[in-house]
């Protein structure tokens, strides 16, 4: 019986895609920005990764940002959720109006065509 985890390339090969910051193509800052854009909470540093020393003000700023990120993300999600019902309702209304317009246009065109055929 083989251990499935032993065959996982992400664990056996540190340069494989998906193995975190080890890949040369992955920029940690870019990952953080991407995470922020996606609304995901900031990830804790991986064990064993040595953090460079930072100044106190900068450290506080980073901590404040880290604390705010999930809150902002949560607010965004909540706002999206609150607006989604309204957006869906508006979309449905637009679809209904569009269908009604198509129906009326066909009705009028047919009436005009019938009149023209009768009056020729």
């Amino acid at each position, binding site marked *: 019986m083989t251990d499935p985890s032993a065959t996982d390339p992400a664990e056996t090969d540190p340069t494989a895609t998906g193995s975190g910051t080890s890949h040369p193509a992955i920029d940690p800052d870019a990952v953080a920005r991407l995470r922020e854009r996606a609304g995901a909470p900031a990830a804790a540093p991986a064990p064993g990764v040595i953090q460079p020393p930072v100044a106190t003000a900068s450290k506080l700023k980073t901590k404040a940002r880290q604390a705010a990120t999930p809150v902002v993300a949560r607010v965004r999600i909540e706002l999206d959720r609150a607006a989604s019902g309204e957006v869906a309702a508006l979309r449905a209304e637009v679809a209904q109006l569009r269908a009604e317009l198509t129906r009326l246009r066909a009705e009028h*065109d047919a009436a005009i*065509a019938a009149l023209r*055929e009768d009056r020729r």
Partner: protein
Amino acid sequence: MAVLAVAATPGAAGSVAELTGLVGRGHRIVAWHHHVRPVRGRRPDAVVAADVAVLADLGDSSADLGAPVACRVTSGEDLSLARSWGVTVSFTSEPSLRPSFTGPVVWIPPDGIDLTPLPVLPLLTRARLRLAHGLPEPLVLAVDATAPPADRSTSLALASAAVVDGPLVPLALALGTPSVITPEVADRFGLEADWEVVVADDTRSADRLAAALARDDERAAALARRARRFAEEHLDLGPAVTDLRRRLGLEEPPSLIDLRLDELATPASSRLRNRADRALSLFTLEPMP
């Protein structure tokens, strides 16, 4: 967008105007003798002929025209002529022709109604709408066919029960309005008394029965439900229109998913249907509206 031409001998076009509006939905509808015939070489994508006599104007046979033709027929003789000319499909509202249906003939229910833009209004919804609009409860109305179209449909949509004029019966049934009608109208539409509608012999008893019906929620709800079902089974133009559209090449045949959604009676503009359409559009080059 395809071009659908209406062709008719003078005076006959009115009989197909409503149907053409439904068949040509989403396409361009033109008059054959006004738009197509005067321009040499101009050809429509499909034609609706109001009568057999006009087929001679379209050409000696369907091969001359080079476009599918749907032709209205009113007798067995018409049907034979249309077939010999080579029409793609014939359609009729003449009940006597029904037994002789062989080949491509589509039955158009007389007094039929397009149910697509008319979702049923259950009693609870009606009550809420009345409350929202500040209308009295219960609201018993006599709805006259001479009233403006918007008034008729609004009255039938909001009434707790209504005394309905003959020509408005299809609309009342489609909206699920608990209705009181005359015995003659019930006979004409094949409606069963106290099953789909209430039947009254005179105006005074009609008003009384409508008032009683408005007070009896359970009975009104049952009548409304059966009325809508009757409209769906006997008066809905939708299936006939879809058949004609497909035969004329104005609508694609249904996909497997559409067929399954039809089996489940999924409404046309429902969320589920829209999601399926959106998902399927990923596999086609057609832009979504």
